[in-house]
């Protein structure tokens, strides 16, 4: 390939125009004190600083983000998990550990057959893959938006059932999180999945 080299004039070869241009550009950026809204409105203005002052300012987490997995409650505030242990089996890093209730199940309300005696997620092991959410038949575990999981000891970062339920909150939160999937009345995963499958070509 032939590269055409531009003939520079003697003035350009003096390097001075480049120098002046350099000053112009750097000065413009140097004196741009406006805060950028790049994390909010996704607009990068050339007269703004882009740094996000992290702990004070937080990132606007997009919907569908795979954060930490938590257990969610149904609209009545009941535990949805039925201790089927599918998430435990599917979990690639084996971060989930469920203690099943045994033959005399722990049931604290009418209409529920089974629920976990203990449900632990080791947040140090979790890789935020979302398989647990994918596999859960009861829509009980969701990857929410939390991305900064910190603690002072390893024990502290093994979240137990109470903590997971508290952090997961009521169903509403997960619902908000997944509104973009087109689910309108609560989360009915089987409906969504059927619809998605139906949309694929060649499905009967």
């Amino acid at each position, binding site marked *: 390939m032939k590269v055409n080299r531009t003939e520079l004039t003697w003035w350009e070869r003096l390097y001075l125009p480049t120098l002046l241009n*350099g*000053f112009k550009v*750097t000065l413009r950026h140097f004196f741009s004190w406006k805060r950028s809204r790049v994390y909010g409105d996704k607009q990068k203005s050339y007269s703004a600083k882009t*740094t996000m*002052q992290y702990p004070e300012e937080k990132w606007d987490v997009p919907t569908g983000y795979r954060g930490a997995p938590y257990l969610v409650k149904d609209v009545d505030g009941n535990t949805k998990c039925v201790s089927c242990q599918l998430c435990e089996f599917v979990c690639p890093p084996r971060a989930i550990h469920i203690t099943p209730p045994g033959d005399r199940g722990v049931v604290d309300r009418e209409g529920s057959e089974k629920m976990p005696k203990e449900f632990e997620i080791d947040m140090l092991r979790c890789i935020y893959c979302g398989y647990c959410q994918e596999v859960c038949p009861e829509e009980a575990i969701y990857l929410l938006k939390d991305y900064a999981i910190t603690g002072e000891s390893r024990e502290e970062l093994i979240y137990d059932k109470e903590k997971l339920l508290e952090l997961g909150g009521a169903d509403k939160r997960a619902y908000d999180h997944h509104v973009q999937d087109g689910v309108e009345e609560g989360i009915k995963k089987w409906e969504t999945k059927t619809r998605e499958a139906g949309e694929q070509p060649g499905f009967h």
Partner: protein
Amino acid sequence: MLASITELFAEPRVLLTLLKVVCVFAVVMPMVAYSVVAERRISAWIQDRIGPNRVGIPFTNIKLLGLGQPLADGLKALVKEDFTPAHVRKVFYWMAPAVAMVPSFVVLAVLPFGSMLGAQKMVIADLDVGILFTFGIVSLGVYGVVLAGYASNSKYPFLGGIRSTAQMISYEIAMGLAVVPVFMLAADPAWQAELIDKSTAWSNYLNDTGLLNLSSVVAYQHESILDWLMFKQPIAFAIFLIAIFAETNRLPFDLPESETELVAGYNTEYSSMRFALFFMGEYAAMIAGSALMVVLFCGGWTLPLGDFFNTPAHQSLGKGLVHIGVFIAKIAMFLGLMIWIRWMLPRFRYDQLMNIGWKRFLPLSLANIILTAIVLWVLHS
């Protein structure tokens, strides 16, 4: 032996010189630390970032615009593991950071950083061969880099060291020749005799100084801003400025380090405090270079704003301190320029660097000497 040493230290001249050394060191070290902070903040602002703005007073929430950063950086450098790779040439490897750092500080010894404080002339060593000494020492700075490149015994530092050598040779000459016209103008006994006759303050200051002494260059430039050799010798100034960039390994001439090609160049194998020594050496060299430029081309500690600023202090402590302040402010401006240029211009290619040094600056500085000589000859005859 011991008695003679104690006698030596009892002599006020020696004590005062030691005091000056300590004071200069105490001023330059924070300047090094804060030019690093300035570098980081200015680069951040130019690149639309904010830069280090968190560290303030330790153990409090006071942030002070990140001015505590040097503390954190220094502590980090001290506490980090000081790793010596197995394949290095140990003695040279240990020596190199010191060799890189020391010359930058030694240069400061002959620079007049102020007029007078009391009866003391504000220069550590009032050498009559000031400028020659400076050039001798400035070129030593490169040995640290070369030694680091050689001692590291691996390819990237080696390439960095080689580049540094070539760069030093090509720029040292142009730099030296650029200064010749300065002394053709300044080292003229006529004006100095006249000045000494005219004012007691100046005669006190220039007491028995030779014409190559740096304080006589300062005296030459004191009258008005047009006397600054920056304006009288613009070509020499431009060449000297650019050569200083090359001498201190600053972008656009930081080929010994050039991160993009050579990992980190000569200091690839260095870590922790030894790396920090190189880093401090670089900034100390910047300060020394700026100070040299201020003395040679920008009137040193003088400001052409009337008697208070452009005559040496005479038994007035305040005036002497103001002169030192002026000198430091001028240095700060040059440091700012150097930092700014770093974030503005891309690095030159190796052959381009050599081209500029040998084919442009060398003939240009020679022509400048001849031109100055002709002008002086015409004026004097």
